Each structure stands twice: as structure tokens, then as C-alpha cells.
């Protein structure tokens, strides 16, 4: 087994990145931002199906729509909520209602004023039925008290951090009522040229190539945005993004734009920096899931034994080139609020794993304990390698493995619709708030056949459901955090689905791009504050 890591190598690159950052974004605050210029941007994925996909639609439309459409609040890297379209959000004493004060003088890109009616429309017609789903289950009513004040009423107490997380999250985009009212929000053709209140207006989307945005001259903050033009371009292949950086055709790329081995090469000259901040509110993990519909995996000892058979340090060091680390529990370590180390851990120990399987009633019979179908979702290149590694790791403890690495559509179907797998490797990105983005993988109400990125294992535990239900209405923050940790402990012990590694996505930027990666979900930020030191 190879235990040589690339860590030494990465330590030096991290140092180089840190050093170059001293002259970069960290010092931006003291420098006067410069106006103008065109920023060429991309991300480590493909073109979206539409520039704005109301029910979500993944990272790609999220990236393109958030430059145009804003939210009420945003979460900074130090986990504080900052006002965007709302200047204040105040809970009542019983946490059953919230008063939202909106910003004055905000207009939509077509000149119409932004008012409380827009927000009420979003809450009732867009967020609750389409984007936020279960998060707003407790919502009773939304009304405009005056043109700049909205009152939300709930059937049960709603924790403040939870509600603000929903508003600052992927589902809280604010769309114009006068455009969408009376139409089907999901299929409205305006989604290809969205209209919002944001710092950038869509100029042109050239399919198969790029989307071009122009500065919104009437933005509510007159000094922003600093850029004149923003172009988001898509490449099919990470290696060509790396070439584009070197050919000056790309200024910034978020979410692992280039092949990992290229990162040190790009950053060593000082022309580019690698930044890992700005992903804490969309923390990516690679999970292993055990299908509870199979008798073998109903046994907890079997799930735990398989966890124990995986060398997750090897996955981090070799497959992710050090840009990942073994997970502890179900909550990514970047989650500064709910993460805890006090959970059942599964250090790599194949001998113990073999013993546990013997004990669980699966001794080696004619060379094999049992056979399993391993489905590794083929949407990330790393999953191909992880699948191949897991096959070997499980075969080392005498389990016969049939590996499949289907394409994206087939993977979604096999894992989340047909439940056609024994063990699956998948990914998800969760917010800092655990409900529902993390809990829906474990709770009974997360079992929704055909709904991607939910509880696909079929795991159901009344004790766990109870913890989550309590957490949903607990308004006292310390108590709520304690419940979150209880949830983590139980899930880590039961292991129906657990993260194997936390990914450490990286943003690559030219060193003259300033003021980036300052919020907890930078990719979904409006990028109004970015400027070019040229």
C-alpha cells in the first residue's frame, strides 16, 4: 500500500500561496479599489442548462444567476449575516414571526422599483413551493406591512440562524414579481436572460461559449460594482482551463478549475494564487452510502467494518492530491458551528474490519465473504479513481466487488431513483445550517424516491428523526448546537451514509484580481466588490 503523500509538496505550495496573498486580496481593504475593466471568469464545471434555474439546478446556474439576482442577506467568512436587499431581519420574542426591513431605492434592471410586494411574492410563490421546500414548511403567512416591510408568520418557533441561512442560501434568490407573476416560474423563458437587482445585467449568452454581463449603472450601491464587464466562459476540460490561464484568457476560476497537479505549477510564478476560502457555506464532501434495502447492510457492524477498511488518507493524498482530508463524523470540519470531533471515528484498519465481518456472521467462504455492487457516481473524475480504490480496499478484506462508474444521468437514476446499488459513492455540498441540507440524507422524511441528493439509503431511525425535529424548533442557539452535535454522534455511530473525505475546493485567480473569496459561499456571491489592479 502506498503511503507516500504529496503533502510535503503541498505544504510548500500552500506557503507560496499564502505569501502571494499578502500582496493580494488580504491587503485590498487598505488599497483604494480601481474602477473598470473586464473580468474573465469560469468554474470547474460545465455550461448551465439555463442562466437561472428556479428550483436550483446545481452549481452551474447558481454561479451564473447570482451575479444578476440577489438575496436578502449574505453570510461572511466569519459567519456573520450581512444585509443585502434587507437591512434588518428581526424575530419576535416567541420566534413565531419575523419582521424584515427592506433597503430603500432598489430598482430592478428594467427600472421597476423593488418593494415588499416582491418579497411576499417570492416567499409565497417561489421559495415555499419551489426552491426552499421543507425549509419553509412552518410558514403560515407573509404580508407587506408597508412598501419596505414584510412580516413572516410561522406555525412553530423558527430559529434565527436557520431562517437567515435559508434567506442567505441557494433557495433565497429574490426574483421580480412583475415579470414572474401569473407565469410558470420554472419554465418562464426570462430565465435565460434573468432580471434582478444585482450589480450585473445580462448582455448576451452565446450558447456553448460564454455569457457576458455589463455593469448595472443604477445599482443600489452607487460605488459598486467596480468592474465594467464580467464574462463567464466554459471549458470542457480542466487542462484547457489551465492553458487559458496561462494564455491570459482567464482571470479567475472557482471550484477546482484546473487539474490539481497544475496548481503548484501555476502558483509558483507568483502570477496566480490558489485560494481555499469562500467555500464554507457550500462544503463539498465525498460520501459512501450503504443501501439499507440489502440485508447485509442492515447490520451496523458491516457498515462500520467497511468504513474501517478504507484508507481515507490515501484518497485525500493521492486521488485529491492533498486537496481533501478525511472526514470526521457527518459534518464537514469547515463548519465552525456544528462540527465536533467527539464522534465515532473509523481509522484505517483492515484487520479489524475483517474481524468485525467475521463477528457479524460473514466469514470467508471459498475466497469471498459476499459480493456487492459498487456504484461510483461518474460526475467527478476523482470518483472513478475512488471507485477503483474502494474495489481494491474491499477485495482486500475478501469482499467481491462489481464496480460501475456510470455517467451523470445514469448515476442519478441508479442511486436516487432506482436504488439500484449496494454501496454507492456520491457527493454533496451542504450549508453550515444542517437542516435540511445535511439532515435530509438521514431522516425518514428525506426518503423521496426520484429526488436527487436525499436519503437514498432508506435509513430510518425514529430516534434520529426526533433529534432533527427538536432542532427544527429549538430557538436557543447553544441548545440547538448541542442537538446538532447529538445528530452527528448518532449518525457517525450508525453510518448508513458517511462522508469519506471533505473536499478542499480551490479558487485560482490572477494576483491582480482583488477582493475575492470574502464570503462563505463566494461562488454564489454577486462579485460587485471584485476589482482589477491593472
Amino acid at each position, binding site marked *: 500500500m502506498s503511503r507516500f503523500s504529496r503533502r510535503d509538496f503541498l505544504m510548500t505550495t500552500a506557503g507560496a500561496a499564502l505569501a502571494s496573498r499578502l500582496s493580494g486580496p488580504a491587503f485590498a481593504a487598505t488599497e483604494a479599489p480601481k474602477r473598470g475593466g473586464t473580468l474573465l471568469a469560469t468554474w470547474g464545471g460545465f455550461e448551465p442548462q439555463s442562466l437561472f434555474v428556479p428550483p436550483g439546478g446545481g452549481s452551474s446556474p447558481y454561479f451564473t444567476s447570482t451575479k444578476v439576482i440577489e438575496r436578502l442577506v449574505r453570510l461572511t467568512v466569519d459567519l456573520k449575516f450581512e444585509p443585502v436587499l434587507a437591512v434588518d431581519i428581526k424575530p419576535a420574542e416567541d420566534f413565531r414571526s419575523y419582521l424584515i426591513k427592506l433597503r430603500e431605492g432598489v430598482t430592478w434592471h428594467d427600472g421597476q422599483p423593488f418593494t415588499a410586494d416582491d418579497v411576499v411574492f417570492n416567499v409565497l410563490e417561489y421559495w415555499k413551493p419551489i426552491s426552499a421546500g421543507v425549509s419553509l414548511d412552518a410558514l403560515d403567512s407573509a404580508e407587506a406591512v408597508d412598501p419596505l416591510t414584510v412580516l413572516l408568520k410561522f406555525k412553530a418557533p423558527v430559529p434565527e440562524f436557520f431562517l437567515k441561512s435559508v434567506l442567505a442560501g441557494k433557495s433565497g434568490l429574490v426574483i421580480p414579481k412583475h415579470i414572474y407573476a401569473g407565469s410558470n416560474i420554472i419554465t418562464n423563458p426570462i430565465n435565460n436572460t434573468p432580471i434582478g437587482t444585482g450589480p450585473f445585467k445580462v448582455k448576451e449568452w452565446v450558447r456553448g461559449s460564454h455569457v457576458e454581463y455589463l455593469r448595472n449603472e443604477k445599482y443600489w450601491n452607487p460605488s459598486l460594482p467596480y468592474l465594467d464587464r464580467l464574462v463567464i466562459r466554459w471549458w470542457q476540460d480542466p487542462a484547457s482551463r489551465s492553458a487559458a490561464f496561462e494564455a491570459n484568457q482567464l482571470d479567475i476560476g472557482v471550484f477546482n478549475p484546473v487539474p490539481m*497537479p497544475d496548481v503548484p505549477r501555476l502558483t509558483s510564478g507568483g502570477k496566480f494564487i490558489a485560494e481555499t476560502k469562500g467555500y464554507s457555506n457550500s462544503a463539498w464532501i465525498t460520501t459512501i452510502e450503504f443501501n439499507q434495502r440489502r440485508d447485509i447492510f442492515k447490520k451496523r457492524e458491516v457498515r462500520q467494518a467497511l468504513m474501517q477498511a478504507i484508507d481515507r488518507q490515501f484518497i485525500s493524498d493521492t486521488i485529491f492530491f492533498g486537496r481533501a482530508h478525511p472526514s470526521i463524523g457527518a459534518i464537514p470540519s469547515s463548519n465552525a458551528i456544528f462540527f465536533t470531533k467527539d464522534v465515532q471515528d473509523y481509522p484505517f484498519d483492515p484487520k479489524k474490519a475483517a474481524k468485525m465481518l467475521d463477528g457479524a456472521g460473514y466469514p470467508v467462504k471459498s475466497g469471498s465473504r459476499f459480493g456487492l455492487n459498487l456504484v461510483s457516481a461518474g460526475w467527478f473524475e476523482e470518483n472513478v479513481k475512488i471507485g477503483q480504490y474502494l474495489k481494491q480496499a474491499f477485495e482486500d478484506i475478501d469482499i467481491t466487488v462489481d464496480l460501475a462508474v456510470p455517467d451523470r444521468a445514469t448515476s442519478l437514476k441508479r442511486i436516487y431513483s432506482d436504488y439500484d446499488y449496494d454501496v454507492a459513492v456520491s457527493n454533496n455540498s451542504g450549508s453550515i445550517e444542517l437542516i435540511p441540507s445535511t439532515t435530509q440524507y438521514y431522516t425518514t422524511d428525506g426518503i423521496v424516491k426520484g429526488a436527487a441528493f436525499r436519503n437514498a439509503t432508506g435509513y430510518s431511525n425514529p430516534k434520529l428523526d426526533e433529534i432533527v425535529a427538536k432542532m427544527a424548533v429549538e430557538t436557543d442557539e447553544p441548545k440547538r448546537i448541542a442537538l446538532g452535535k447529538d445528530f452527528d454522534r448518532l449518525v457517525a455511530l450508525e453510518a448508513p451514509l458517511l462522508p469519506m473525505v471533505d473536499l478542499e475546493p480551490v479558487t485560482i485567480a490572477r494576483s491582480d484580481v482583488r477582493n475575492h473569496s470574502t464570503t462563505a459561499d463566494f461562488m454564489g456571491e454577486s462579485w460587485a466588490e471584485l476589482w482589477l489592479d491593472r
Partner: protein
Amino acid sequence: MLPRTIDFARRFARNRAAVVGLLLVILVIGIALAAPWIYPRNPLRIVGRPEIWPFVNSRFPLGTDSLGRDIAAMIAYGARTTLLIGLCASITATLIGITVGAAAAYFGGWIDEMLMRFTELFQTIPNLIFVLTIVAILGQKLEYVTIAVGVVTWTPIARLTRAEFLSLRDREFVQACRAMGMSNLRIMFGEILPNALPPVIVLSSLVIAGAVLFESAVSFLGLGDPNVSSWGRLIGDGRTLIRTSWYICAVPGLAIMLTVLALNLVGDGLNDALNPKLRDR
């Protein structure tokens, strides 16, 4: 029989390039057959440090890939996969092609029309996309990739067989057979086919080369069978490392290139040997 074989060998050997091709093909077959003895372990096992360059460590003469698997072992086992798919796909394609082509030409009329339109239907679909679609529907198994490649490559064989049959079906010996009351099947496969076969065999050998390329493309795109070693998959896996460890792509790339070249050369040699009249073009 014997003099004919010697004559055939002599004609084949007159094409020097074909002999080189044949030697290469024999070498690849030899490696494929010997793989389990040279590398008794599963070739997909991680055995060393990742990214060891070729000729650096004597344990890994061709280096290791990004996971630390022995490239030499994967190449050897990959030769099995490649040849197996190539051969089986070629047999599948030849069987379909001969059946369709022979039936179309021999019976003529509406059967010919129908079968040829059917052939054209297959010809109009871009081959690679067709293969990917079939694999995506059936699943990532070696046998499905083989079927997929066979299903897209039979059309030229069908057209060639039809052309050969058309030129033969009204010859005197065929009419004599008819007059003797031979059954259609016996005339088609017992009398006409042996005479029509030489060019078809040449084409079939080229189909093997094509099938090797298709398999590589499918595996390169990550749709091949992940449970077996394959040259195309190795290139696909090494793609992201092309700037730093280009040998991961280059070694299997070279293997594919040499094998396909060798198969083409053998095809040329077969053409010379089987169609002596064309020899002195």
C-alpha cells in the same frame, strides 16, 4: 492444400511491411496470453508510489499511474481486453455484415431494397455517438461494448459482400447449381460465399483495428468497463496529468498506435495475398 498455403505465405511475405505488422500482432497476442504469468496479481492493484516515471524503478519498467498502479501490468492486461473486444466485435460485425449483404444481393428485389435502406440507416448515425448511446443504455460491461462496436461496424462489410455477391450470383457455376436444384442457403454459403470471402476477410481485419480504436475512445470517455484494465481508460485517467506526467498517456497511446498500425499492415498483406490479381497495380 499445402502448396496453396505456401503460395499464400509467399505472396503475404512479399509485402515487407505486412510481415512487420504480423510480428507486432503476434507480439501483442503473446503479451496478452502471457499476462497472467508475468503479472499474477490483479493489474488494477495499487502497488507503489504514484507517478513513478518509466525506466526509473526496475520493479515498474513503464512506471506507475496517478494511483500507483503498475502501467506495464495494465498494458499487458489491457492487450487482452483490446484484442478480445477487437476480435469479438469483428466477428459480430462480419456475421451481421455477411448475412445482410448476402441476403440482399442474392434475393434482390424488395429484400435488397429494404436491407440496403436499413444499412444506410445505420451508416447515417455517427459511429462513435452510436456506440456511446448503446453502451449508455446497456451498461458498462465488456460484452456490451463489444456488441456496440460490432453493431456499428458491420455496414461496410454488408455493402462489400453485396457487391461481391452481385457480381457472382449470375455466373455460370451458380446457374449450374440452381439447375441442379441446390437450396438457396447452400448456394449462398456453400458456393458463392467462398468466392466472395477474400476481400471480406481483408475488411474484417481492418474492422479489428477500428474496434480497438472504438474501445479506446469509449474507455477514454470513462464509459468502458471499470473492472478490467484497458488502454483507453489509462489514457483517460492520465489526461489531467498531461502537463506533468505525460508518459501515463503516452505509453498506452503508443500501444494503441502500434497495434492499430500493425493490424492495418496485416490487412494490406492479406489483401495482397488473397487478391493476387490486384498485386501489380
